[in-house]
């Protein structure tokens, strides 16, 4: 009995230590979230929930087309001991199918499954083609979804060279040789499925014709131009000898020559002008200390009529006629964002809110539905409402700019719901912009001499006409452009 307490202590110790055993411990598998599903790819997040380390010999996910997981696709991620997240990714699913997925973990004795989630893989689809118009041999990108890496692209029945398939959603493809039609349906074949583009791919169009009615002995820059019906006007500015040119010429369709119009005002270069016949300001002569030319004019009903001059000086500014009023905007002489409006009824000038940025006359601009559009030196096309002072970026001019080389001197004109923009300095690119969708379509490049200055652009009966003052010569070429010709 005298050692009974020792025996009791010994038994207690045995009892205490006998509870310590290395156990796997209970755990739960959670199929937590479907992170992302694309055509053939799915990423699933799972979690092992436990209060201690676990002895898992294998874990991962099972994917199956049936709820009973017969013949599953398994992603195995090896053994692990710590609880926590695990991520499974597979790219071997079929397009447009409903899948069941669950996490699993294999221990020495058990195979434990998590809850089941379902998802549907995406069917392939073509959303858009960019650019929609492209030259043969160049590359376009087909945007969509569910594209396998082995996808094929067909222009009509012609299989095109696929450059690469990126992220299952973009296919870069080389445009095959031009076919009989300029508008071609495009389809993507991926796996056993076919996806069609909603819009047809288009080969570029546009034909240029050099007319035999050139302005002989006249080569202009810093000039103005406008149009009245079927009569085109061009003049003022600086001539090929570097002298101020103080006449305006006109050409009426059907005639075979440009005629002087007996402009009565002060000579001008870098005058502010609209395409509708308002003009004024600018400089009277050449040089740094040139004199401001302060008269303003409106050409209407076959005559020049002088209008009130504004209290501010405008030179190399943007001119626009919006809602029947003449707007003079920015320029070099005053604040470059200043906007003044001439009301022909009250014959007075009013202040309008400033532009959000400075502008000069060399920025390509046009008017559409009483809004002013300007392409800045960063190629952004801004839509501007001068009455609410709201500006919004709409799109980006597609051709590259070279600073101080090809970022000025371009032309723009609106015909219907389309604007024709391009032929910047030392560049041949010419683009059509759909003003309802802001989608650009390339036109055939200008084939003539690029060492020339655009002196004017006009439109009549679905055709464009433009003047190009040749730099090495002393004449101005007169061109006609058919946007749909090919």
């Amino acid at each position, binding site marked *: 009995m005298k050692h009974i307490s020792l025996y009791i202590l010994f038994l207690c110790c045995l009892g205490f230590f006998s509870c310590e055993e290395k156990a796997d411990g209970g755990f739960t598998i959670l199929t937590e*979230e*479907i*992170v*992302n*599903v*694309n*055509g053939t790819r799915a*990423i699933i*997040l799972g979690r092992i929930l436990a209060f201690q380390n676990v002895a898992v010999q294998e874990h991962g996910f099972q994917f199956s087309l049936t709820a009973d997981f017969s013949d599953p696709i398994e992603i195995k991620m090896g053994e692990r001991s*710590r609880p*926590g*997240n*695990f*991520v499974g*990714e597979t790219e071997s699913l079929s397009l447009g199918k409903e899948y069941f997925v669950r996490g699993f973990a294999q221990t020495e004795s058990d195979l434990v499954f998590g809850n089941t989630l379902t998802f549907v893989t*995406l069917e392939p*689809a073509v*959303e858009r083609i960019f650019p929609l118009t492209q030259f043969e041999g160049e590359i376009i990108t087909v*945007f*969509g*979804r*569910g594209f396998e890496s082995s996808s094929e692209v067909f222009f009509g029945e012609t299989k095109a060279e696929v450059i690469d398939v990126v*992220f*299952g*959603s*973009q296919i870069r493809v080389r445009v095959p040789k031009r076919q009989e039609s300029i508008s071609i349906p495009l389809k993507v074949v991926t796996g056993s499925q076919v996806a069609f583009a909603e819009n047809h791919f288009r080969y570029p169009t546009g034909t240029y014709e050099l007319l035999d009615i050139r302005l002989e002995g006249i080569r202009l820059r810093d000039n103005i131009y406008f149009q009245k019906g079927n009569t085109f006007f061009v003049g003022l500015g600086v001539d090929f000898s570097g002298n101020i040119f103080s006449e305006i010429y006109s050409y009426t369709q059907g005639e075979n020559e440009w005629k002087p119009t007996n402009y009565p005002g002060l000579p001008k270069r870098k005058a502010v002008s609209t395409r509708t016949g308002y003009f004024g300001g600018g400089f009277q002569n050449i040089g740094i200390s040139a004199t401001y030319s302060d008269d303003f004019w409106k050409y209407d009903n076959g005559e020049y009529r002088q209008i009130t001059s504004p209290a501010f000086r405008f030179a190399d500014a943007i001119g626009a006629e919006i809602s029947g009023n003449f707007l003079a905007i920015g320029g070099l002489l005053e*604040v470059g*964002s200043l906007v003044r409006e001439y009301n022909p009824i009250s014959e007075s000038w009013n202040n309008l*809110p*400033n*532009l*959000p940025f400075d502008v000069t006359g060399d920025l390509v601009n046009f008017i559409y539905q009483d809004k002013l559009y300007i392409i800045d030196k960063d190629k952004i096309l801004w839509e501007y409402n001068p009455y609410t*002072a*709201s*500006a919004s*970026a709409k799109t*980006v001019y597609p051709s590259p700019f070279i600073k101080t080389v090809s970022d000025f001197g371009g032309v723009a004109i609106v015909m219907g719901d389309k604007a024709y923009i391009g032929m910047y300095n030392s560049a041949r690119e010419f683009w059509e912009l759909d003003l309802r969708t802001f989608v650009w379509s390339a036109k055939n490049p200008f084939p003539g001499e690029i060492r020339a200055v655009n002196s004017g652009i006009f439109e009549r009966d679905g055709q464009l006409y433009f003047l190009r003052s040749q730099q090495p010569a002393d004449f101005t070429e007169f061109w006609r452009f058919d946007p749909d010709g090919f």
Partner: protein
Amino acid sequence: MISTSKIPLSLFFLFLVCLGISCIEEYSFESQDPGRMPTVEGRFTTQLKKHQVRLSRASQYGPDFNGLNRPESLATVLIRDDLGKTILLEEISPGVYETADFVSAEIGRSYNLEIITFTGRRYISLPETIVPVPKIDSLSYRSVRSATTNRLLSDVGVQVIAHFRDPGDVKNYYYWAGNESTYVLVTQPEDFTNPPTHPTCPRCPNPKPCCKTCYRKEQPVVNIYASDDNEFNGLAQSRIIAYIPDDGLRFLDTYRYEGSNLSINERGHRFLKLIDQQISLTGSVFDPPPANIRGNVFSLDDANETVLGYFFASDEQAIQAYIKRENLEFVLSPSTKVPDDCRVLLNSSLIPPADWNP
């Protein structure tokens, strides 16, 4: 004289002392280096604009300088919706990625952010589904003065208050973020004096003819204003959504606060609340303990890799309020004097923003 019987005992104690000393060795402590953790900050909203995502590698914070956060350059960054549509982002400056075009998110759609680093590591965010944000009906503001530890100096600022009605049928989470704002900067060019290095007349008065008033842009003050509708579900509410401290320059004339009213989900709300809690620590014993704040981005290569930051996909309502000095009860006094042309201050211009309409 020492007794011979005590010698072994003395030797025994000496042995113990030697044993104790011999065990002491220098223990050099080194904190665990988590490495440079990838950090993601991005927001994709229903506003039509160019959206940005910032990627960087966070450096370890501690007594030793470990370098600055490094931008994560040359990564491939894309936003993908649940219909498979992909928007690629371009790197516009180191670590800053921007959508190439003006794009907007759609309500009801889910968006993932996917990142492939230059070294090939892949990251993806959890899908963020966009729910409509209850619209703010109006904004008001009030100036407030609060005591500081300096008895002679009070903290003065302006609270912006949003008035809206929370829809009762759904659980809503709100996040009000500040954006770049503009204020009228008033300086004193007439008090300009020459610099001390002036060759002929140092520190002499030399009034400048221009300019006294400019428009200055500034980045928002970092504060997190997020809320759920637990306390006001279905009720009309007036809540503080921004606080702009008066630095003596901001409220000399007119301040235009610009912000965003954003819808977020429960996960995003928890993330913001934890961040707010952590950046509000004061070192007090009542502070909450430091937390490991998980975002919604994780690695596809190693799910246990810590990725900091959050990718928000939100419905966004742009909000704006003109704060006029004459309506403020308190302003910082005396105001800050800048005896120079206002244009010399960073981000100031004579030209007002295009839509400036106080």
